[in-house]
């Protein structure tokens, strides 16, 4: 079963989206080949739910991270080889050779381009194979299994002997062309497909580990589900280069984080950082967090920018209620989830928001197998929850006033804050004076 999440969550965290600026995907998308990009997209669409698979993938990234290998192919060579290998060829050697002869003739007689294209495609493929042959020994000790082993075996065996015979940058004779073409596109067809897929993987591994090295991302360790833990010593937002890092520790006895803080103190950013870290960690990707260990979860749901849907006749509040309901259903099914609610029930009046936040948080908190992060402006809820539940941790993001200018240190502090500086912000913008002039 796949990792559960939904569009709202992906939008909140700005995870996918090839053309969206600053999406997490585009942050990592340093791939050189089209196939690599597609593979990366696939990984973003399907995070893993098996601790061993996650750790295996992150080990591979880590290996490339430390090895600092660079992608050994020219992207245009790969593209030419892809096109060439993608075309069909006859299964009979003789018939295919006959066709080549005809093309060669056409080329000489009528300047037809087919023969030239065939030759350059084949040469690109040979280039690619040679580059790979030289690269493979550099990958000694790589923890990647499966595809890597298959490709290594292919190159060690007799199947690739012919590669030695081909000189570099020499035009092929018609006979050579016919033979190699038959080999590559017919006899070794499956091997070639494997090799291309391997190259796409290599592209992703190298691209992602390069981004990680450049941005100081680190690798998370996945633990089996039943330990119910999420722990990091320093978590920050991957898109912010100088983001302030905060430690965070969620576990069965403290599975709800109740977050308060003034406007602009960084509540949403912290919640997004957590959501993105959870998501990336489940992909086996490097995360913007130090020493991250986590139990594998079944899914991630966030509710940070819920918009009203007046076309369907929903008010803002009703949209929030439906969102909470959806998450409640998932939680009630017994899934181990990470749930993030920013400013729960902000679309209603204070008393309703107080009642609703209190009731819903209390019920959610009883599911100790899931982690909840809930932010609110209604600090009175925190006091009431402190009385009723023992598995909440209360943290806030402080504001320090320097004269009339608020400063935000963005460091998570234990407790509940009643900081509020809305009027100061309004006063700083000098709005009232403007109206009264």
């Amino acid at each position, binding site marked *: 079963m796949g990792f559960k999440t939904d569009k709202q969550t992906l939008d909140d965290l700005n995870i996918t989206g090839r053309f969206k*600026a*600053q999406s997490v995907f585009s942050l990592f998308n340093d791939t050189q080949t089209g196939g690599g990009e597609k593979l990366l997209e696939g990984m973003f669409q399907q995070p893993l739910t098996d601790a061993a698979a996650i750790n295996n993938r992150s080990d591979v990234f880590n290996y490339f991270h430390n090895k600092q290998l660079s992608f050994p192919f020219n992207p245009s060579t790969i593209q030419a080889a892809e096109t060439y290998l993608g075309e069909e060829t006859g299964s009979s050697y003789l018939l295919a050779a006959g066709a080549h002869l005809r093309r060669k003739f056409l080329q000489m007689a009528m300047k037809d381009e087919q023969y030239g294209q065939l030759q350059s495609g084949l040469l690109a493929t040979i280039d690619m194979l040679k580059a790979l042959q030289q690269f493979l020994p550099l990958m000694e000790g790589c923890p990647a299994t499966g595809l890597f082993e298959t490709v290594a075996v292919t190159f060690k065996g007799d199947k690739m002997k012919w590669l030695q015979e081909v000189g570099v940058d020499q035009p092929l004779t018609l006979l050579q062309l016919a033979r190699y073409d038959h080999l590559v596109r017919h006899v070794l067809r499956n091997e070639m497909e494997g090799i291309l897929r391997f190259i796409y993987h290599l592209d992703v591994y190298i691209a992602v580990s390069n981004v990680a090295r450049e941005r100081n991302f680190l690798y998370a360790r996945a633990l089996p589900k039943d330990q119910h833990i999420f722990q990091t010593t320093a978590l920050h937002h991957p898109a912010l280069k100088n983001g302030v890092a905060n430690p965070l520790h969620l576990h069965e006895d403290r599975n709800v984080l109740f977050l308060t803080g*003034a*406007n*602009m103190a960084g509540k*949403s950013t912290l919640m997004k950082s957590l959501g993105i870290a959870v998501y990336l960690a489940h992909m086996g990707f490097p995360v913007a967090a130090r020493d991250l260990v986590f139990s594998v979860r079944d899914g991630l749901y966030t509710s940070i*920018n819920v*918009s*009203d849907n*007046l076309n369907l006749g929903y*008010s*803002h*509040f*009703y949209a929030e*209620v*439906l969102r*909470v*309901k959806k998450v*409640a*259903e998932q*939680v*009630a*099914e*017994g899934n181990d989830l990470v749930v993030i609610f920013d400013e729960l*029930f*902000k*679309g*209603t*009046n*204070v*008393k*309703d*928001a107080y*009642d*609703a936040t209190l*009731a*819903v948080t209390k*019920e*959610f908190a*009883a*599911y100790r*197998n899931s982690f909840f992060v809930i932010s609110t*402006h*209604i*600090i009175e809820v925190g006091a009431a929850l402190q009385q009723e539940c023992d598995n909440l941790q209360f943290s806030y993001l402080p504001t320090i006033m320097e004269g009339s200018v608020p400063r935000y240190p963005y460091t998570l502090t234990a407790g509940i804050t009643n900081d*509020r*500086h*809305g*009027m100061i*912000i*309004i006063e700083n*913008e000098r*709005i*009232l004076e*403007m*109206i*009264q*002039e």
Partner: protein
Amino acid sequence: MSFTTDKQTLEDLNIFGKHGGDSIYNIFNRCVTRGGAAVLAELFRYPLADFEAINKRSGIIQSFALAGTSFPFKGADFDAVESYLANTDERSKLTVQENTVARKLTNMIAMDIETQQIYKGVEALVALMKKTQELMEELNENKFYKQENEEIRTILNNPAFTEMNQSRGKLSPTQIADFDVMLRFRYRTLVEKLLQHIFHLDVYLAIAKVANERKFVFPKALPAGQPDLLKLEGVYHPQVKNAVPNNIHVTTDNNVIFLTGANMAGKSTFMKSLSIAMFLAHMGFPVAAQQMEFAVLDGVYTTINLPDNLGMGASHFYAEVLRVKKMAEELQLKKGLFIVFDELFRGTNVKDAYEATIAITSAFAKKRKSIFLISTHIIEAGDVLKEKCSNINFVYLPTRMNGHQPVYTYTLEQGITGDRHGMVIINNEKILEILQNGKKQLRKTTANYGI
């Protein structure tokens, strides 16, 4: 001074809509010609701030609506004309000298496309002009349209066009070559002006038709600077089916409307209905209401669905503050505005929102020339404002409880309401039950593991 508005307002009111979906523009866009549709979009983009201009336009449309005039042209009539006029290449002029036997023969067998297009264009345009001439005769009675009618006739009666108007039957190649030079080059500006008049007429007639079909009324614009700012009866949202109409009367003594009501009671819809009516009224268009009179204002600004701009690092609250600041800047220019805030300061904590709502609303209340419509959940702010300002009109949208089911009347009443049904909605969705029952099942499974 022109009428001002902004992108946020256009989006809030769904004036143009997204990707051509249902929008206010689409309600009115029943134009036959493409040029008419373009003119209509232009009218939507630039509403008027001059009461005479507004009344003039609405008078024209109203007169057509009463007469039930229909637009006699077809969209296809204009296609040939438009592509013909788009060709401004001097070299494509037809020349009479070339009219040799050989050329006539080739033309008879197969005319080249460009020449064909010119032939068709000239014929279509001449036909169009004749038809317009007839139409203007018909519309002679309409005194509201008199000025434009005369302008159109002046163009048509230009001596240069006499020969065209008098031509009968199929045009000869010589005539076409002559007319071509006149229409496409020498009197091009006149021809274009004529087309613009026809496009405008298309718009007027389309709107008149919409007004008749939907039973919209034509508002009466009054000059700015009088005590009665807005008198509106039976206003409703043109895009909501079976919408409930409401009345509102705004004078300089109650120009701040303070709206409360439970979630889903229809606050946003009422605010949109009123704003759309104001917007359309300033275009001289008919509105979804029974009766409307308004003093002309200088702009409309609404803040109903304000997105936070986290990409730029601004929180929702800060986005709201900046929006209020923008309003303040506009008010500083001594403009009379129609300003709408839905759920003012919902992006912050209650206490901040309470203080800020009071401060901003009472500051707005000092501006008697403008109309403010402010909704909030923070009813406590209303009590303070009642003491502080004399010109606030407190209205609410009620909720009646029918057992556990809330029922909404969507009819405005005077006062402030403490209605709140948030918990009822949550209970109706059975969220707490889902969580409570799920937990029990989970306990069972963990118990089984224990065994």
